């Protein structure tokens, strides 16, 4: 049987384990082990050796990220933030962990904060996740009552306060420097890097931001060791991954599988294949800001390197499936509407470019597009690409557009030459 460390305690439809049930199932063992028997450096060492990479989208090595935090200075505050903003369209994996096993995240935060010698930790959760907020509040209360948060945890001389911050709906707050700005109670504009948050983050203090799923792996690495973790994956990466699928598949959902599971297996076995009457045209493998993969690319293993080699990104690992009955241009228009709306407005290419892109796509959908628009769209893919804007929002927006212009060249041209959207009723089906 494949191991499912992250979701093993989750029972769909049932309330999450409370502290006692969580402990009966082996919970808070990693906290004991780390705080009572390991130095912070040893915990960081295990995470580094495990090869754990960030599950928030960029895939940065977690141990490496942590290693940039300077040595603690007496009296200095240091922060760890669990990023539970999860607003990327098509992404619903962290919600599963937040709602299904909130104590796992609390323990993950305590162990990771100990490794980083953080004095304060935050869980930054999107405000719309009402159930997650209620369950986390309960879990934090139970953990505090048991002495797992607060001063002198387990008598180990380590203190941590954990705060839950409910946001108010703004995608850019998921970007780690914008998130820190939001926590300071300011307009959540991203910040320039360097300085990196590990050196100068929240209120100028050393800070680490990690995705919820990334952190939830840490207690399991502490319990079972880095070699065990590496062995969970199929290809070069270690661990499991929460993969998901939405769109016209038979059983949309999220599943914890060995990282490196082929896309075909996720679609055909776990999502049950396409719904009756729908054929697969293409998919975004890891959320709205990843490039399209074609129906001929299903044999790709879903690990970081393989998806990148195929021209896309693993991203969040939750795929969005485009079927043959929905208009690809309409889908891209929908995506660019999202990115244009959620641009923070700080830098010109993104603030002005994205609405322009959206309007051109809208014109194509309405039959008012011209050949020149296709060239303009292509030009924007370059103008808003990596390195041209202040943060990765605009390049993310260009991923589905750039790949879409290539993969759906013919469909784009049809919109121009037929002066209409060839799909009956666009997405209205």
């Amino acid at each position: 049987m494949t191991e499912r460390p992250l979701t093993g305690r989750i029972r769909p439809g049932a309330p999450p384990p409370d502290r006692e049930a969580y402990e009966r199932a082996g919970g808070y063992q990693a906290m004991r082990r780390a705080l009572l028997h390991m130095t912070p450096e040893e915990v960081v060492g295990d995470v580094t050796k495990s090869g754990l990479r960030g599950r928030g989208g960029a895939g940065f090595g977690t141990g490496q990220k942590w290693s940039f935090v300077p040595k603690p200075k007496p009296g200095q505050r240091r922060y760890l933030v669990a990023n539970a903003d999860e607003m990327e369209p098509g992404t619903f994996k962290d919600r599963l962990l937040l709602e299904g096993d909130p104590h796992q995240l609390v323990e993950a935060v305590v162990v990771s904060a100990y490794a980083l010698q953080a004095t304060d930790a935050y869980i930054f959760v999107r405000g719309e996740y009402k159930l997650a907020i209620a369950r986390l509040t309960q879990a934090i209360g139970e953990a505090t009552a048991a002495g797992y948060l607060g001063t002198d945890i387990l008598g180990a001389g380590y203190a941590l306060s954990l705060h839950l911050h409910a946001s108010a709906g703004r995608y850019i707050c998921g970007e780690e420097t914008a998130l820190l700005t939001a926590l300071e109670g300011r307009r959540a504009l991203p910040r320039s890097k360097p300085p990196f948050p590990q050196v100068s983050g929240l209120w100028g203090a050393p800070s680490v931001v990690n995705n919820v799923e990334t952190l939830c792996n840490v207690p399991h690495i502490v319990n079972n060791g880095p070699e065990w973790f590496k062995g969970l994956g199929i290809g070069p990466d270690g661990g499991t991954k929460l993969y998901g699928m939405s769109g016209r598949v038979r059983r949309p959902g999220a599943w914890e599988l060995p990282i490196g599971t082929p896309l075909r297996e996720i679609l055909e076995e776990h999502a049950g294949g396409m719904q009756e009457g729908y054929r697969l045209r293409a998919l975004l493998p890891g959320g709205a800001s990843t490039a399209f993969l074609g129906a001929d690319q299903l044999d790709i293993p879903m690990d970081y390197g393989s998806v990148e080699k195929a021209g896309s990104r693993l991203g969040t690992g939750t795929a969005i499936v485009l079927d043959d009955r929905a208009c690809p241009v309409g889908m891209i228009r929908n995506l660019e509407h999202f990115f244009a709306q959620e641009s923070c407005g700080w830098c010109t290419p993104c603030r002005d470019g994205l609405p322009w892109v959206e309007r051109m796509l809208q014109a194509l959908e309405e039959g008012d597009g011209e050949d020149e628009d296709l060239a303009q769209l292509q030009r924007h893919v370059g103008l808003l690409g990596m390195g041209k804007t202040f943060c990765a929002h605009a390049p993310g927006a260009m991923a589905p557009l750039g790949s879409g212009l290539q993969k759906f060249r013919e469909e784009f041209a049809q919109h121009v030459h037929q002066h209409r959207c060839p799909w009956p009723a666009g997405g209205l089906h």
Partner: protein
Amino acid sequence: MSTAETLADSASETLPDALREEIRLLGQHEAHPRAACIEALQRVQREFRWVSDAHLREVAGLLGMSAADLDGVATYFNLIFRRPVGRRVLLLCDSVSCWLMGRERLEAHLSARLGIRPGQTTPDGDVTLLPTVCLGHCDHAPALMLGDALHGDVDTQKLDAILEAAG
């Protein structure tokens, strides 16, 4: 009275003392009081449904911010309402998975049923219809939130039932 006037009713009053005290304490718990501003605005909204100019000024004062500074933060967030909203806010997801699963039809149905376009409030002040970004419920697309309740796999029939049950 216009819709706007019906909705704006109580918003010119000063904040109740208990809420003022609560917001002051929220600020005190932070190393920098302004860090509490989103939570403070959310509390005001829980009581009054939206944040009026008068209330914004009061919160700013309690947290040692200028009103302009706080308004800059407030208007940045999709779910801090700086205009009156109805008794119930319906957030209809307009992101990609819901679009693929037919959310346009739900929007058309809602507009016809309620007689309003997205962004508007019914004349009786009952429902405000707002498009929203992905609710993280894409495996049950199309999805919406009515107040704090999340609904998935919504079709027009289910939509009618949701509106009536919560009516």
